[in-house]
């Protein structure tokens, strides 16, 4: 009996200790400030790295970064469930989002290039040929001057920012034929690398030696061509806030937009800085020259 009492007492003590510990840690994380950024997986590495640097420099703050996709990011910020919504698209381009309540902060630019399997034997296509390939008007690579291989289309999932950008600026708003869909750029690259006749599209930072990038109308997919808009398939990466940001959110976004991040981290991770651009583009695709850097 006394042994049983002992065990009960011990359990009680442990419970109280755990509750106390939980209470204490709760207090601490409240004393410091924390914000949450959710959304685009394409932008996630940058926000994560910037968040780590920021919290390293500002002790007691915490920046929680999660993926989930552009749609998740925009719907969470619209509901006010998080402080920052990461998006590959302008909020007005996403269905179901009231863009007027959100404030846009463009922190990076991403160039997107078509990639093909090496066996296709092509390094250049015209925009017209690219549209023919993706809408299914041609089904074999020899019809556009390549090897005798059937064309295998690989798309990103519907609603993906990369896909929306590619269809708008690469295919001149033509819709791709229904085909295989993959939900990540890494997966797309490995499938294109191993499947003969495959074509898809990824951000510049995902291109490596296993796949062949495609020039369009003899314009190469390079960062310089993106900054002058000679290469048209690029998009902004957005941090959205609900209303004007305040407090930690405000200073974190200012930190990401500052030269300290724009000239180092943004470039190291394979993005371009909006400061490098000599043009500006609106949500509807209207381009204006800004002179720029």
């Amino acid at each position, binding site marked *: 009996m006394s042994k049983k009492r002992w065990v009960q007492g011990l359990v009680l003590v442990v419970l109280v200790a755990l509750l106390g510990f939980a209470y204490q840690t709760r207090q601490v994380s409240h004393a410091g400030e924390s914000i949450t950024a959710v959304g685009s997986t394409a932008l996630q590495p940058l926000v994560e790295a910037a968040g780590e640097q920021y919290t390293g420099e500002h002790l007691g703050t915490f920046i929680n970064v999660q993926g989930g*996709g552009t749609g998740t990011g925009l719907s969470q910020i619209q509901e006010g469930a998080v402080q920052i919504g990461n998006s590959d698209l302008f909020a007005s381009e996403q269905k*179901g989002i009231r863009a007027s309540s959100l404030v846009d902060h463009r922190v990076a630019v991403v160039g997107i290039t078509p990639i093909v399997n090496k066996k296709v034997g092509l390094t250049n296509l015209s925009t017209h040929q690219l549209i023919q390939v993706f809408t299914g008007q041609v089904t074999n690579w020899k019809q556009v001057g390549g090897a005798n291989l059937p064309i295998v289309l690989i798309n990103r*999932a519907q609603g993906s920012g990369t896909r929306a950008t590619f269809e708008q600026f690469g295919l001149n708003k033509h819709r791709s034929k229904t085909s*295989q869909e*993959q*939900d990540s750029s890494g997966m797309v690259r490995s499938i294109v690398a191993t499947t003969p006749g495959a074509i898809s599209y990824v951000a510049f930072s995902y291109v490596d030696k296993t796949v062949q990038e495609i020039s369009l109308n003899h314009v190469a997919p390079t960062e310089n061509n993106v900054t002058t808009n000679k290469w048209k398939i690029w998009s902004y990466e957005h941090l959205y806030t609900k209303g004007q940001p305040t407090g930690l959110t405000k200073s974190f976004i200012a930190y990401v937009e500052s030269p300290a991040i724009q000239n180092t981290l943004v470039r190291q991770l394979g993005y371009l800085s909006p400061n490098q651009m000599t043009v500006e583009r609106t949500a509807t695709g209207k381009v204006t020259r800004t002179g720029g850097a």
Partner: protein
Amino acid sequence: MKTTQQLEKQLKRRSKAAKLEIFGRVISLTALLLIVAVVVAIIGFVASKGIATFTSNHVNLWDFLSGKKWNPGITDANGKPEVGALPMIVGSFLITILSAIVATPFAIGTAVFMNEISPNRGAKILQPVTELLVGIPSVVYGFIGLSVVVPTTRALFGGSGFGILSGTCVLFVMILPTVTSMSADALRAVPRYYREASLALGATQWQTIYKVVLRAATPGLMTAVVFGMARAFGEALAVQMVIGNAALMPNSLVSPSSTLTSVLTTGIGNTVMGSLQNNALWSLALVLLLMSLVFNLIIRLIGRKGRLQ
């Protein structure tokens, strides 16, 4: 007088054991209620979201179940959104049935070997191997499928290698251990005297297995197969990696197609809560949930029928 009153009080008071019993009952009842609440909440949530496609977005139920075009973001010539789920439903069923057809003979064969032919070796080698197979995470199956099965399919049958055939190969290995161990249980449940009687009548071992043991275990074996099918139907990750995720009616076993689960996992992060695209995905989830319930019902029916015999 006073003593009788005291005695009455003492007798009417709850004993310590009785109090403990009530305490135990309350705890287990609370656990039960909690789980029931969670299940009801999940079903309610999925149903309310899934039905919104038909009530607030005014999609025709029949169009949803029989349409062949899946482009929730786009409206067709009549101004109706393209939310035809038939390709996914067909894909899910094809892949489930095919993998069950392939897995069943292997599973029953293994179970017969483990129980009837060589129980010793079965227990020593096959049992641990089957249990090991159960423990492998589905992403590992998917990865092996992507790097081994897909290229092999491509080399043998042409196309891109992504499709129902690759999905079937992966799912076959995934449901095999489940079906095997449940079949083994079913065989073990056959009373020993059935076998003894059969052998005493002069039947060979094969005749005993085929005419007596397997017949007696049929309800259990069927439960095992349906259970495997339920698992195959709900598997998402591994299938998604090898099936190609093209919302097209499968016109051959090696053409890219999709299942309910693969469309759900690729699409849910790219849609906005409350939009038609999102609701349409919830409707797919509802179909998936209803199908799991149907599988459960079938298992129960088989179980009841087995008991009546």
